[in-house]
């Protein structure tokens, strides 16, 4: 028997899949447009109470764009009252002074401003036009409310060569933290992988640039560079271990061990409309499926790294090896690792098909085609 798991310290409430943006690297499921309706306010308040009783302390409010929920203030207020540290993950679109003041009054602790990016928006940003203006307004609002300025930019081949200017802009906006997160290749990013995967050389250059800025900025701004696992030959522990501390609730109430796990084959994951969070966390098949190491096959089962990386990411194993219980193919010991290397080697070459933007029409098309898994 495996030991009783600890509490789900992190509760991620994905309040909606609606979003004004169409990011080509979005991690929301590619078939989001086909999914059932959103939970109501009362459902979310119940989920928050049940999560807190289980011992959850961090509450992430994300989406889609969570500001599209007009009950966001109510949800934040209840989360705060219950004792969660409340984190809003937003693009800033729709964050007016009035709304920010209401969220502050409700007890919102922290805002992470993500950088929406399509090629056009990136150009806007780099050329100081519309997007930069929006971020400047939002930065001012954050400071006025005493929130730290925490920015997140998803990095990929189309913007990685601009890392120098991205960091410069963030410094100019007064960001205190900047996370340069390389794209993780699931969902929409997986569909667009051929366009988004950077080359080894691009990556090395971006790391050098980031290191130089770190020295220049000192304590003024902290820079985090999240390396892409495709290039490293090593699997990363996913959400710190399946069902070990992380619990996502999707807009329709599906409870997931990580925000992309719904793509996996097998029985459906439990829903908070039908089951209490405690039963879901401790007893559901879905949350126990890849807990610990008992489910592993070779090469993971006898690997000395198995407790450290827990076999890597189940979604990546499913996407790239066609088997959710296989070793994560980014690991050099995986029999499917050659496919990952080939994708990286191919990066930078010509791509025939166009980028697929995250929008409801593309979602319905991809959903009908089987959810975006590519052989």
């Amino acid at each position, binding site marked *: 028997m495996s030991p009783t798991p600890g*509490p789900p*310290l992190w509760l991620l409430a994905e309040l909606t899949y609606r979003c004004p943006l169409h990011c080509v690297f979005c991690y929301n499921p590619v078939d989001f447009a086909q999914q059932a309706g959103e939970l109501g306010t009362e459902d979310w308040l119940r989920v928050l109470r049940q999560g807190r009783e*289980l*011992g959850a*302390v*961090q509450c*992430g409010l994300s989406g889609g764009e969570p500001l599209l929920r007009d009950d966001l203030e109510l949800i934040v207020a209840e989360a705060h009252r219950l*004792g969660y*540290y409340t*984190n809003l993950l937003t693009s800033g679109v729709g964050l007016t002074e009035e709304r920010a003041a209401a969220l502050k009054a409700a007890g919102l*602790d*922290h805002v*992470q401003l993500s950088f929406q990016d399509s090629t056009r928006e990136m150009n806007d940003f780099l050329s100081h036009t519309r997007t930069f203006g929006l971020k400047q307004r939002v930065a001012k609002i954050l400071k006025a409310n*005493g*929130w*730290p300025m*925490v920015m997140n930019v998803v990095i990929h081949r189309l913007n990685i060569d601009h890392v120098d200017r991205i960091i410069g802009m963030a410094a100019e906006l007064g960001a205190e*933290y900047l996370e340069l997160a390389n794209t993780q290749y699931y969902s929409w990013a997986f569909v667009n992988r051929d366009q988004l995967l950077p080359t080894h050389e691009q990556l090395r250059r971006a790391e050098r640039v980031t290191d130089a800025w770190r020295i220049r900025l000192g304590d003024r701004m902290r820079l985090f560079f999240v390396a892409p696992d495709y290039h490293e030959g090593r699997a990363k522990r996913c959400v710190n271990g399946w069902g070990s501390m992380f619990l996502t609730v999707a807009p329709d109430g599906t409870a997931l061990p990580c925000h992309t796990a719904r793509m996996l084959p097998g029985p459906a994951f439990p829903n908070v409309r039908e089951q209490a969070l405690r039963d879901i966390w401790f007893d559901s098949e879905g949350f126990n499926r890849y807990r610990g190491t008992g489910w592993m096959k070779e090469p993971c089962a006898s690997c000395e790294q198995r407790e450290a990386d827990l076999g890597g990411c189940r979604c990546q194993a499913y996407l790239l090896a066609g088997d959710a219980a296989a070793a994560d193919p980014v690991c050099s010991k995986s029999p499917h690792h050659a496919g990952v290397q080939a994708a990286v080697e191919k990066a930078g070459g010509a791509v025939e098909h166009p980028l697929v933007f995250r929008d409801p029409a593309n979602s319905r098309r991809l959903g009908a085609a089987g959810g975006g898994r590519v052989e």
Partner: protein
Amino acid sequence: MNALSMATRPRVGAGFRLQWEPVQDCHVLLYPEGMVRLNGSAGEIMKRCDGRRSLAAIVEELERAFSAQGLAPDVRAFVELAAKQRWLAWDDER
């Protein structure tokens, strides 16, 4: 922020939240997307750092609560360490 003195009134730093967690059986300090678990003595010190009590008063209270003597150097060392991590902050005394 001036150097720490016995008159300093430390409080939990901006952006941090201190609370008792029954499930974890300890005080925790929460910050954006993270958490620090505090050991018993760190929790006892930090929960008294409310911006009203002076360091002298905190030491006195702890010595009374735990029937101990001479805690000032340890408490002071912890408060200084916590300030470096920005867990604690204080206004300068006039």
